[in-house]
């Protein structure tokens, strides 16, 4: 299935990427080539084959619910580009 420019813009919105015009153009071609190449998985009839999400088949690994000291607040904020008090500071949600 070919990938359109609108597909790329839609996916970029889902992925929170503000692509430049050049990137939209290039990705439209590249994604079409890659999707065509990987799309051959559709050749196989996999009716009844269970999907694998994890190669060792683990489910529900449970640990005891024991409290541990959390990261100190100054460590949590140490790498923040901007913060005020104990909060991350960001611009308004919508302008």
């Amino acid at each position, binding site marked *: 299935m070919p990938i359109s420019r609108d597909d790329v813009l839609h996916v970029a919105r889902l992925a929170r990427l503000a692509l430049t015009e050049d990137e939209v153009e290039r990705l439209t071609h*590249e994604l079409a080539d890659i999707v065509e190449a990987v799309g*051959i*998985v559709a050749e196989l009839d*996999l009716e009844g084959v269970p999907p694998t999400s994890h190669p060792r088949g683990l489910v529900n690994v449970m640990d005891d619910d024991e409290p541990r000291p959390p990261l100190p607040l100054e460590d949590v904020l140490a790498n923040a580009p901007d913060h005020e008090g104990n909060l991350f500071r960001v611009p308004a949600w919508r302008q």
Partner: protein
Amino acid sequence: MAPVVDTLRLTAEQAAALLERREISPAELREAYFEAIAERDGELHCYLRTTETAEGDGVPIALKDVISTKGVETTAGSRILAGYVPVFDATVAARVKAAGLSLLGKTNTDEFAMGSSTENSAYGPSRNPWDPTRVPGGSGGGSAAAVTAGLAPWALGSDTGGSIKQPSALCGNVGLRPTYGSVSRYGVVAFASSLDQIGPVAKTVRDVALLYSIIAGRDPLDSTTAELPEPVRLPEDDSLAGLRIGVPTELNEAEGIEPGVRDAVRRTLELAEELGAEVGECSLPRSVRYGLPCYYLIAPAEASSNLARYDGIRYGARAEGSSYQEVVERTRDEGFGDEPKRRIMLGTYALSAGYYDAYYGQAQKVRTLIIEEHREALERFDLLACPTSPTVAFPLGERADDPLAMYAADLLTIPSCLAGLPGLSIPCGLSDGLPVGLQLIGPQFGENTLFRAGHALEQALGFDTVPERWR
């Protein structure tokens, strides 16, 4: 004053013995590596940063820059993490420190470990010690090149679809991608979580086994980890008597395998027979044709989810913007390079409404088939063998603008990664003067068998890990 040791030849085991006998001090040993780094890393660019002061009086080590190191900048080769200084150690970093190993520095990687050449690093590529006009492989090219060039006795890498094994093959050293779940990923920058594993790179199989024994085992902070069913055995035996090695036809005759690579692997399998192994053909009918497509749906899908966290709000670089949405979208566009963006876009597409079943869902079922056919082959054989990489190291720039050609570099490493199986790459000869890697694949938690076979072959092959231009 001449260096006390020749780091080009020194193995980690030999370094430990020198320290033990007090023939060298920990400070002198580190100094020898920093001298080698000063001499050769200007050309090779293995390190993104070195750590002149570090705890530990044992053998030094280098860590790939996807592994969080407390107080030492960790960027995963990305601009979006420029200046990010972890406030905690990854479990593997803590374990090597607890074993006394001292950190030499953080090694270069394709951005977010996505690539097969290190050319996707935002900080410039590393170069192959055998021929600096060629790539060292990737994504862990910095770690692999550092070990070959004597800039570290050993190192840790991460492997999602071949990022430990393929660079080891291209740089002529030994790399292990361990069984999925045997080594903790806590504190390691996540790429594709159902595939990511941490593993060792070194000059010898014994060094790899020793480093694996330090990092492996259950970690309560990574719920996918398990205790090893048996302790790691350092290999000693030179015989392969009784060992059954399967040679999957499709992985040994795939289109694109260079004749020189095929010959070196075939000669090594003949040697294995002389050492007492029983070598026979087998088949993994779907692993080559469908392995790469399956991987390039599953890994980008998981990456698109894992990389959603980089938003410039809590850590890392932040772009300017007048609203929260604009800050996030611009931070991600400016912070990610071309390859992560390509994979985020591909993965988001494969997971989006209307396409999920056709792509991601189908790939998960293909993965089941690939697991089953490996299981069947490993019922008849103790190990499987094939080339690690279809080609020797390729020239810088050759594939940089062709994503599909770059993806094909991992054609032979990907199937066993999808199956969660351990794989060991050992150097098995030269083709056009460049190293060829033999890949040995075992059953889950079959590392001891890989070490035994790898060590016996290593002894018989006598491969010189020092690049010819430095001998």
